[in-house]
């Protein structure tokens, strides 16, 4: 509760949460505001924005509604972003916990695997994975998670390493609690918060990676994504720039929203509750 209170006191957090809630509402209500397949041909090809009230943002090369594409694209972007981040954090927590808790040879092996994944640029890994597996939403989610789990794994391990030496863990050991229970019940909950703080950045990166994959034609061709909209608009960039600009703006706003949200969260978690009041008191002495 305190965390939420602190969070909404940060300006970044407020702006971030407003942007994100609007986007999430938009994404959830897509079938109501823009019913039907967003890829269907809705009108004349390359209609300019604001020229036809029924197609407010105009149409693309094949006559598909740009607004409907952006609304449904929000769905794909947020879904892929959230799912990929979730998967990455789940894998990261798991590996980090095992490595940190077990130590020794297990730790060595797991951390070298983490090193291997950290050396390879995440985007290249995703690119290779999708080209081999074929483009579909689950594959794209996996591909992005594959390049993003190493950081949370390292973070978790570091936390676990310090936590497992605490007195309460030693106490749990003394009373004969099984190691798995200690790890899951007593260490994991303490290790999660710092990882959650980086989760928002992972979401932002995942959204951008998904857009980049779609831009290169490796997204799911059966669902509309902002990346593929930008890519298709690129061919007519000189004559109909709005086709690339609109989804580009949507992408910027989303990533900005996620980033601000994460900034707010980090601030709220690091700033002590009493900072605001204690500061002037300290300065009172002449």
């Amino acid at each position, binding site marked *: 509760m305190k965390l939420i209170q602190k969070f909404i006191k940060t300006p970044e957090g407020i702006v971030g949460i407003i942007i994100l809630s609007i986007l999430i509402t938009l994404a959830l209500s897509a079938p109501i505001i823009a019913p039907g397949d967003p890829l269907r041909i809705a009108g004349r090809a390359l209609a300019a924005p604001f020229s036809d009230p029924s197609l407010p943002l105009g149409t693309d*090369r094949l006559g598909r509604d740009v607004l409907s594409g952006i609304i449904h694209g929000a769905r794909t972007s947020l879904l892929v972003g959230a799912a990929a981040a979730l998967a990455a954090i789940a894998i990261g927590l798991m590996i980090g916990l095992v490595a940190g808790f077990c130590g020794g040879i297990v730790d060595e092996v797991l951390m070298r695997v983490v090193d291997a994944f950290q050396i390879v640029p995440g985007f290249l890994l995703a690119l290779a994975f999708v080209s081999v597996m074929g483009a579909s939403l689950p594959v794209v989610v996996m591909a992005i998670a594959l390049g993003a789990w190493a950081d949370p794994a390292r973070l978790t391990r570091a936390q676990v390493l310090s936590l497992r030496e605490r007195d309460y863990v030693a106490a749990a050991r003394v009373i004969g609690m099984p190691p798995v229970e200690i790890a899951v019940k007593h260490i994991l909950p303490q290790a999660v918060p710092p990882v959650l703080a980086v989760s928002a950045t992972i979401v932002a990166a995942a959204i951008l990676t998904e857009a980049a994959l779609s831009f290169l034609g490796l997204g799911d061709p059966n669902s509309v994504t902002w990346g593929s909209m930008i890519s298709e608009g690129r061919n007519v960039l000189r*004559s109909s720039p709005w086709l690339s600009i609109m989804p580009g703006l949507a992408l910027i706003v989303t990533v900005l929203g996620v980033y601000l949200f994460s900034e707010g969260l980090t601030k709220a978690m690091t700033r002590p509750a009493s900072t605001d009041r204690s500061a002037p008191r300290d300065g009172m002495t002449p």
Partner: protein
Amino acid sequence: MSEFTVSRRHILQASSLLLASTALPTLLKAQDAGPGGRLVVAADSEPKNLNPAIVASNGVFFIASKVIEPLAEAAFDGHDGLEPRLAISWVGSADGRSITFKLREGVTWHDGKPFTSADVAFSALNIWKPLQNLGRVVFANLQGVDTPDDHTAIFRFAKPTPIQLIRNALPVVSSVVPKHLYEGSDIATNPANTKPVGTGPFKFAEHKPGEYYRLTRNDAYWGKDQPLLDEIVFRVLPDRAGAGAALEAEEIQLAAFSAVPLADLDRISKVPGLKVVSRGYEALTYQLVVEINHRRKELGDLKVRQAIAHAIDKTFVVETIFLGYASASTGPVPKNAPEFYDADVPNHAFDTEKANALLDEAGYKRGADGNRFTLKLRPAPYFNETRQFGDYLRQALAAIGINAEIVNADSAAHQKAVYTDHDFDLAVAPPVFRGDPAISTTILVQSGTPAGVPFSNQGGYRNPALDAVIAKAAETIDSGERTRLYKDFQKLVVTDLPLINVAEWGFISVTSERVLNIADNPRWAVSNWATTALQP
């Protein structure tokens, strides 16, 4: 009577008029463009093997056709639709078992050695027939080449071979390479494949990978006062958006093969100094085709195939996807091949209601979600237009209750999936019509091609009646009879729909107005450019 006497003066007058009328165009041409100059051209792909005798593809011809010449080139108004190059005449025997080529005299290779019938015989027997992608089909029955003298080559065939087929194939399959450089070496890895030596108007100078190819004028070319250019540079510009910008910045003077995206043509045609040309590709017709996997139970049903044909709005495809730079197809032979084209075939007009009725009739009712069944659709990745048509086809099929799921892949994976693994229900393909249905068109519907042969019937379609017509035409010597058989072939294909022909298109060139004499033959982009000139 005296009015009709022919005097010396009359003859002089008439002959000088005649002389003036024929000399005038040449004089004008000479005024328009003095010889010389360097033409810089956009190249979107960068083939390593530049030997058109082995790889008869447009990507290779685009560069190599200036260096290595065929026996004859396609022409708008030549005899048989051909213009002599290294051969000056070709005569088929009555039994279809031999063809006699008279070869041009006084031609030398770029390294100074004379060109003779031995070069033709060597190219035909050691390269065209065993190694070339198209020559394997056209010269399948070639048994030997007799060379009674240095300027006569007699092709002997094991089975009757139609002269019409050989004639139509000559521009594409008959690139002659020098025997003295290839003999006794491994032809596939010969250095002359990357640094070609030919008889053409330009000599190969250098290739800087990732940057350019450079060709220079062949001063000893057999064509009188040809070529007009000093140099041709093919600048490698893989990014399609880049070609338009480079033209506007006058860094290049020509972008062929639709290197400038269709959607940008309207804007670029208004740029002063540039022009958009759609001529010069008449013999390079690409066809937009829906390939069908007949192994799928639903697609094995003619009614379903008819329904799909009725669901496609060809006008939309031509006007919106190709922006008018294409025409709707009626069948497997394009209108650009008037020798064979037959408009009198069944027509599957755009009619969604009829398509729905056909599917209902076939017993595929719509389910609760409005879908009758789901298909896997693989659009070929080679062109923007094939991908866009894939997107359109998915929507067109949705309107008749067929749920198509698009699967995208790169070129290699797409070819493997469709032509080797048969992992598709529908595929969008852009086959090329090469002047004669027997070269690369009948193979699209003929049965019995082993798996793994790209751009062939890999949909498991088998129609004995159609196979019989194709087999008969392949050995019919009489051109009239052969043409008639190919008209039957068109009717059979459109009636039974082994595949669906949607549209056919040529490419577009965008050039600087300073470039003259472009598009003067139906394969201009891949011909020798000996008459092309550049205004200073």
